[in-house]
């Protein structure tokens, strides 16, 4: 119960920050409160929400995944040729299978390295990041695959009624993760393994199994994000997704999920995603150079963990303990 009361301060401050940003932007940035811009914000937030949903689960587990950008690049580059085919349904099906399958493979390898070998997650996923990026670069050999069939482009650019498909997709992914993390045994296991791996093992949870599943799912999520990204861009190239991991980690950090595992949740991540997206949108509208974005992302990560630490008295940002990664 005490944890809940503490959490409330954090949640309150996050929602307050988001609302304040919205209000300030409405007055200072002329193009902000238009339907076109807000829909644009929603679309941009969607991709980040998909990535951050998976990342939340990984970080709740006490891990991290630096490979999502490269996994997205490799899986979407391998899948891309199928979306050029003349038989749209078959192409869509095979392409999606190839893409998601590649993502699942990358995730599975991450999971194996972390759970079976016991590698620190940031080392394992950095290695995967290099390998997947290298593989994507070698496969594409500097080429770009572009001009996809409309059936595939509908995924990211279509509308269902008034609502963009992309937003619906992100909402669906979020709903699934919300349900799994909060309403299923597996979700509880993720929290327990993240908070105390040894206690989880003693209470009969298969710790390696849980770790394996979480990284596998995150590989799938990264692949999905990659497919959505190339569908929106109408082109696939080996360098795509470079900032994905950092942006998702930043969104989760702002969302108040602890990097020591077991504390936080996906509700906060939505707010984190929206804050990150509004920040980017504001910088664009106010004419700040895009060169600033990397630095701002880093500063936001630092401020978020510091603020969370002060507001919640510590546990959300990591209590005392020897866990460093």
């Amino acid at each position: 119960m005490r944890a809940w009361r503490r959490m409330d301060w954090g949640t309150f401050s996050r929602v307050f920050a988001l609302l304040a940003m919205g209000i300030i932007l409405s007055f200072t940035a002329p193009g902000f409160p238009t339907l076109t811009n807000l829909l644009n914000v929603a679309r941009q937030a969607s991709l980040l929400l998909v990535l951050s949903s998976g990342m939340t689960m990984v970080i709740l587990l006490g891990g991290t995944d630096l490979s999502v950008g490269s996994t997205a690049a490799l899986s979407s580059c391998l899948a891309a040729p199928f979306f050029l085919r003349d038989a749209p349904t078959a192409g869509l099906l095979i392409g999606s299978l190839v893409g998601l399958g590649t993502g699942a493979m990358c995730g599975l390898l991450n999971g194996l390295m972390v759970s079976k070998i016991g590698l620190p997650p940031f080392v394992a996923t950095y290695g995967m990041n290099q390998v997947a990026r290298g593989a994507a670069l070698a496969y594409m050999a500097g080429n770009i695959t572009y001009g996809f069939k409309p059936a595939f482009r509908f995924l990211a650019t279509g509308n269902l009624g008034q609502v963009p498909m992309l937003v619906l997709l992100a909402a669906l992914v979020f709903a699934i993760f919300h349900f799994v993390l909060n309403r299923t045994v597996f979700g509880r296991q993720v929290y327990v393994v993240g908070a105390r791996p040894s206690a989880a093992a003693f209470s009969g949870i298969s710790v390696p199994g849980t770790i394996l599943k979480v990284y596998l799912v995150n590989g799938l999520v990264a692949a999905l994000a990659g497919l959505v990204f190339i569908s929106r861009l109408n082109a696939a190239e080996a360098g795509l997704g470079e900032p994905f991991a950092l942006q998702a980690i930043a969104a989760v950090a702002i969302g108040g999920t602890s990097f020591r595992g077991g504390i936080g949740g996906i509700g906060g991540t939505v707010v984190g995603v929206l804050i990150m997206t509004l920040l980017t949108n504001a910088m664009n509208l106010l004419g700040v150079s895009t060169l600033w974005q990397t630095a701002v992302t880093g500063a936001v990560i630092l401020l978020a963990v510091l603020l969370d630490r002060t507001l919640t008295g510590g546990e959300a940002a990591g209590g005392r303990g020897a866990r460093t990664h």
Partner: protein
Amino acid sequence: MSVKSADREVFRILRRIPGIAYALIALVAAFAWFIPGFFTPSNLLSVVRQGSVLIMVSLGATLAILSRGVNLSLGGVMSLAGVVTGVLIHRGAPLSLAILAGVAVGAVAGSLVGAVIARADIAPFIVTLGMMSIGEGLALVLSGGASVPGFGASFQVIGQGSLLFAPLPFWIALTLFFLIHFLLRHTQLGVAIYAIGGNEEAAALSGVDVRRAKFQIYLIGGLLAGLAGVVLASRMNSAHPSGGMGFEFDAIAATVVGGTPMSGGRGGVVGTLGGAAIISVMRNGLNMLGLPTPWQMIIIGLIIVGSVALDTVGSAVHGRRGGTV
């Protein structure tokens, strides 16, 4: 220090070196056999010149890992320091001031990271990841996203000059190595670093000023990264905003290959010297083989993961597991 303890010190160093020295000799021999032009004085000197920068960064990485932490900000800080020095030289600042400013930037970044980690007790992984992004981002902003080229002969001496048949960067790296080695073996901070890495709570209970030590670890890391960034810019005769990218992971690999486990508390910079040499020889050899960049990325990624994996499996056998979830 008495003669006897000096003897013991030398003996201890000699006893530590062999494993890694044999590995290094075997690697050099293999490359000399298979790669024409590898075992020539000019190429070996250029390996030493390139490796010197990695040694400087790796010293900082080792300090963090010995204390059971990690420092992912080293590469980003390197980039920033190089760009700051480069831009100042271009604006006509005196050389000494420009160099000092580069190193000072490293110190500021390091002390910021150190203060957050030590005071707020937040996991080093996320704090240094944030600083990595800030460093890279500010380097992008300051350089306008392009490399800052051409500094003139007097600055290039630092990275390209030679003294007593060896490259100047080597002498700088060697001096820093002896300083850090002395610090670890003969100062209070050194004792504190090993104690914190072994068992932080026990260290705190036995009177070690944990906060102060942690602050100093990351401050020194920042200083070393700043110096390395300046030397790198001088050697390349240009400061690239992502020039330091990836150095932090090479440095982690050098540390772990050199026998300091990710779980901290054991090891030291003597091994790191060998680890950095192995990584540098490997990079040079792969380059000389004419392997395309994507394949080099894949192989180096595998080497980093493989080296940490060997260490982790090794320490699991000895009853102490390297990584957490």
